[in-house]
Structure formats: structure tokens, C-alpha cells
């Protein structure tokens, strides 16, 4: 498997506190991988080790196939990173900062002239690039943070809480930006304490709590893992006991609850079996008015994971 990020037994201590405990992390290339956990879970600590701001106490870290020890500029060449609440030199203008960072990525003048205005446009800073960063709002600095993380055509983009401190409209924009990065073939690794954010953009998720990975899988499997299956709600034209009975005989149905004209069908599977349900009801004389898929949210999963840890994860 081609991995963009891999850690084995990663451990980091701050004097007394062990912030990350034997973390095994695998981020596949070309995935949008969410790193989900509540505040203080160890997300930022892990990310800072990946980008070379902190030293691991134990374990192995590989980024884009290279082992990261300390100060590895060659690896960082293909990695974009947006820190949690990024801060930039107040005395530089937005455009100047991107230009200088661009030079650090070895971009030619031509590349910088084309790329920087495009990035400013993408993150919505166009028109403000000539202002000193000291005059930028927090949200604008956040946008500049995203722009600088995309400089130099990175293969891997690491975003630490990208929507922290953003208003709802900007949050949607940032989410779309991340989807765009994935479409461009980049690997996106983002940390978040927001379940719905991860749910909306990620293909894979690692759940971390108190420095330990609780689970790591595709978004779908993370959902399916502890939930069994989905739930389908069917509204009938009139109550029909025969319809409920026929559903109970289906192999993938675990439970059927009838309350008036509403049938709540709990499934053993995550597969979409609404066609089978529809056929069974119609075959037993029921008339369907409406049918809806009621999946449980990642939030439910997360709460369950936290209450019963799956050791080792990954």
C-alpha cells in the first residue's frame, strides 16, 4: 500500500504528560484523511512531529516514503502545512510572504507570478495581498495559512484544525477547498474536533483520544463498525401488519418496529437495500408513501468509540 504518512509506535511526552502513546497511523496517498479527536487528544502534537517542529520520543515516522528524523528540508519540499491558528510576520505584506515562501520551495519567478495570484484568488484574499499581515483579521490569516500550504504543488497537505475560528460561510469555503485539493490528486490530512467536518470531506478517518488511536478506517466502515447497519424508515398509506411480517423474514433485517403507519426497519448491513424492502412490502399488500435512509452520524460512532477503546487502532 502506498502511504503518504506512516507512524509506528509514535510516542511524545511533555515532561509528565504523555501526549501521544504508541500511535500507529497510516494515511494512504490520494485520500482525504481525517484525524478526529476532542481537544487535547494529541492531534497537534502528532502533526508537529510529522512536519519537524517536535521530536518524537519513540517510534518511527515516514512522510512520503522517507523516514523523518530531524530537520528534513527535502521531505518538506512536497509537504504543505497549515498550523492551528497560523501566525505570520506582521511586517510583511501577504503577497511578499507568499513570494518569499515560494522562493523557499524553489519556485521560479515565472511560477510565482502565475501561482500566487491564483492562490490568493482561491482563498479569497484577492485585493488584500498588498496589505501588511498585521492588518489582517484572524480569518484572513487563516486563509493566508491555506494559501501558503498550497505553494509549491505539494503532494501532501496537512491542515491542523483548518476551520478553527472561521465563520460558517468560510467553513463551507474551506471544506470545498479541501475537496478541490483531493481532486487535484493531493493527499489531504486534516485534524478536527468537529465530527461533521470530517464526515463531510474525509474518505478515511483515524479517531484519536488521549494520545491513543481508537480506530482507523474508511469513513463508511468507521460508521458501520460499531453501528451494525443502517436504519430505514417507511411510511405506509395505512397500517399493514403483513408488511411488517414479511420484512422480519428478510435475512438482512434485524428488527422492525411498527407505530401506526410508520415502519422503522433496523438493518444488519450498511448496503442500500431499499429496493428489497420496497418489493417485500408491495408483495404483502402494503402501499408505500415515503421511504428514507436514516444512518447514524459519526458523532454517535465517536461517542461509542470513546466509551470503549479499541486498543492499537490503525
Amino acid at each position, binding site marked *: 500500500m502506498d502511504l503518504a504518512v506512516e507512524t509506528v509506535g509514535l510516542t511524545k511526552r511533555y515532561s509528565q504528560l504523555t501526549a501521544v502513546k504508541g500511535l500507529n497511523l497510516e494515511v494512504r496517498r490520494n485520500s482525504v484523511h481525517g484525524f478526529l479527536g476532542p481537544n487535547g487528544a494529541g492531534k497537534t502534537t502528532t502533526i508537529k512531529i510529522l512536519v*519537524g517542529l517536535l521530536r518524537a520520543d519513540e517510534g518511527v515516522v515516514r512522510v512520503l516514503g522517507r523516514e523523518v528524523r530531524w*530537520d528534513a528540508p527535502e521531505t*518538506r519540499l512536497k509537504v504543505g*502545512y497549515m498550523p492551528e491558528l*497560523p*501566525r505570520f510576520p506582521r*511586517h510583511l505584506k501577504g503577497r511578499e510572504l507568499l513570494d*518569499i515562501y515560494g*522562493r523557499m520551495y524553489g*519556485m521560479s519567478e515565472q511560477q510565482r507570478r502565475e501561482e500566487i495570484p491564483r492562490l490568493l484568488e482561491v482563498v479569497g484574499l484577492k485585493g488584500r495581498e498588498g496589505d501588511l499581515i498585521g492588518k489582517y483579521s484572524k480569518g484572513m490569516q487563516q486563509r493566508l495559512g491555506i494559501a501558503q500550504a498550497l505553494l509549491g504543488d505539494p503532494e501532501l497537505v496537512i491542515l491542523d484544525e483548518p476551520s478553527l475560528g472561521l465563520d460558517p460561510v468560510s467553513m463551507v469555503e474551506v471544506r470545498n477547498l479541501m475537496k478541490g485539493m483531493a481532486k487535484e490528486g493531493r493527499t489531504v490530512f486534516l485534524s478536527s474536533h468537529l465530527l461533521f467536518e470530517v464526515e463531510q470531506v474525509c474518505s478515511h478517518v483515524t479517531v484519536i483520544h488521549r494520545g491513543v488511536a481508537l480506530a482507523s478506517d474508511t469513513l463508511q466502515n468507521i460508521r458501520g463498525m460499531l453501528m451494525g447497519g443502517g436504519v430505514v424508515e417507511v411510511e405506509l398509506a395505512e397500517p399493514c401488519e403483513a408488511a411488517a411480517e414479511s420484512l422480519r423474514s428478510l435475512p438482512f433485517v434485524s428488527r422492525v418496529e411498527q407505530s401506526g403507519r410508520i415502519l422503522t426497519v433496523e438493518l444488519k448491513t450498511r448496503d442500500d437495500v431499499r429496493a428489497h424492502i420496497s418489493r417485500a412490502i408491495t408483495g404483502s399488500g402494503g402501499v408505500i408513501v415515503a421511504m428514507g435512509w436514516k444512518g447514524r452520524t459519526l458523532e454517535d460512532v465517536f461517542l461509542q468509540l470513546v466509551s470503549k477503546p479499541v486498543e492499537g487502532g490503525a
Partner: protein
Amino acid sequence: MAGGGWAPRFWAVVRYELLWNIRKKKLIGVLVLALLLATLALVLPVVLSNVTGLELARNPNYVVDTGIGVGGLGMFLFAVAVAMNSISGEFEGGTAVTLLTKPVSRTTIFLGKLTAALITLGSAYALLLAYMAVGGTIVYGPQENLHLLPLSLLGATLSTLMWMSIVLAVGSISKSSLLAALGSFGVFMALAVGSPIISMASDQAWILSYLPGGGATGYLAGAGGGTPYTLGAAVSTGTDGIAANLVRYALNPSLNVTFFKVANRMQVVELYSEPLSAVLARSILVASAYSAVLLAAAWYTFRRAEVLD
């Protein structure tokens, strides 16, 4: 390394730092202060001569003798203004987080910052020298030996580099700009206060030539007997005197420096003499040695520093 090699990355850091430096209020403040003091030094004699009615003597060597004219404290203040935030400021302001994750090695970042500091310093001193050259010509008449001003610039920059190395080392180790400024000011003051005490209280003033600062004081033109006041110009043997001694040496390579001490009942006793060339070479070596050791310490701690928040 892919994408342009080392040099463009190094110059990007220099650029980053220069743009930051020229917009620093501290640096502009020190420069304005230095220009004000230079103006005062130029204008005061004119005012005095008008008041006393004594005509101001022409002095064709005024500018090369005075150099940048800000003295040890002036150079120290420039060192602080240029370097106090250079490393520690990145950690305090949270900007280290992005800078240190760019594809540039920490060593390159350190060298770039140092280079930018030297360029900033050299430019400020060049401006001061140009100002003195113009002002000196107006006040003291046509000036000679102006071709020696680059030596003055070089010497003052090396002297200041030594102070800057202290600031950078304290800043890099403590990650605090305030400590960098205050700590090195403490060192500066301790030396400034301690040096005269050492030189007056003992025969061991030569020790001062191996410490940062003004060093011991000797006099040109050999031992003529009588009091030092009748002798030639005073010579500082320390790291602060490099510029002045470079110019003196270039004008007259065969000068000697004589050292005295004031004994009981104000009797002046000659201690020893040595060639100006020896004084100069030693002060350059001492300044370079301190700079090298302190910069190595700053670099080593910066290279290993974790970025905690």
C-alpha cells in the same frame, strides 16, 4: 536539493529578514538617534565657536578620525536593535511554526538571518558615514583620506557583530527577545563599569584587551615622559576600537602604543609599549573568536529547538 538548489533558498531567508528589519521601529529609532547625535557632534562646535568667538580650526582628518562616531554604546544599541528579535521573535510571535516547516534547513535559515543582520548594519553605518562625510566637510573644511572610510565601515561592523553574537546567543537559548536585550545589556554594563576598575586597581589592564568592549587605554607616539595628556591620541585596545585602529594603522603602520598606570600621589608610571599593528591584530582576533563561539552556540541551540507553541 530539487528546485533551484541552495542559493535561492538562502536569499529568500535574507529577503524575509531584510523586509522585516527595515520596517522595525526599533531599528529606525536607533538610526534616527544616531543621526541626531552625529548632528549634535557636528553642530555643537560651530555653536561654541560662535559663542566664544574662537574660530573653529580646519581639520582635514575629522571624518576618518571620527568614523561612524557612535562609540561602544552606540554600536551595542545597533546590535540590539538589529538582532534582538531575529531568532527569539520567531518563537515568541508564533511565526517559527511556518518558517521552520518550509523546505529550508535550519542552518540556512540561521545563516540567512545573520547575513541580513550584517547587511542591515552595514547599510546603517554606511549611511552614518556618508552623513558624517558631508557634515564634516561643511564644518571642518575639505576632508582627506576619505578612501579609508570602507575600513571604518568594516571595523565598526566587526565590532558590532561581536555584540550581536551575544544578543543572538542569549536570544536563541532563552527564546526571549526581552532577555536577549536585557541580558546582553547586563554584559555590556558589567564590562563598561568593570573595565575602568580593573585598569585603575591593578597593573593587569592587558586583560581588558581580551574582553568585549573598549579594552585598555594606551597612547600613541611613544613614551615622552610627563603626563599622558601631553601624549598623542588615546587608543582603545578592545573590540570596540577596531575601526579607529584600522584607520590609524592604514595612515601610519609604524605607530606604537604605550600603556601607563597612575601610581601613588598621581605619579604616572609607564608600563609597556607595543606596536599598533599588534593591538589591531589582537582586537580583530578577539572579536572574531567571541563572535565565532557565540554564533556557534546560537546556531546549535536554534538547530535543535523544538517549537512548542
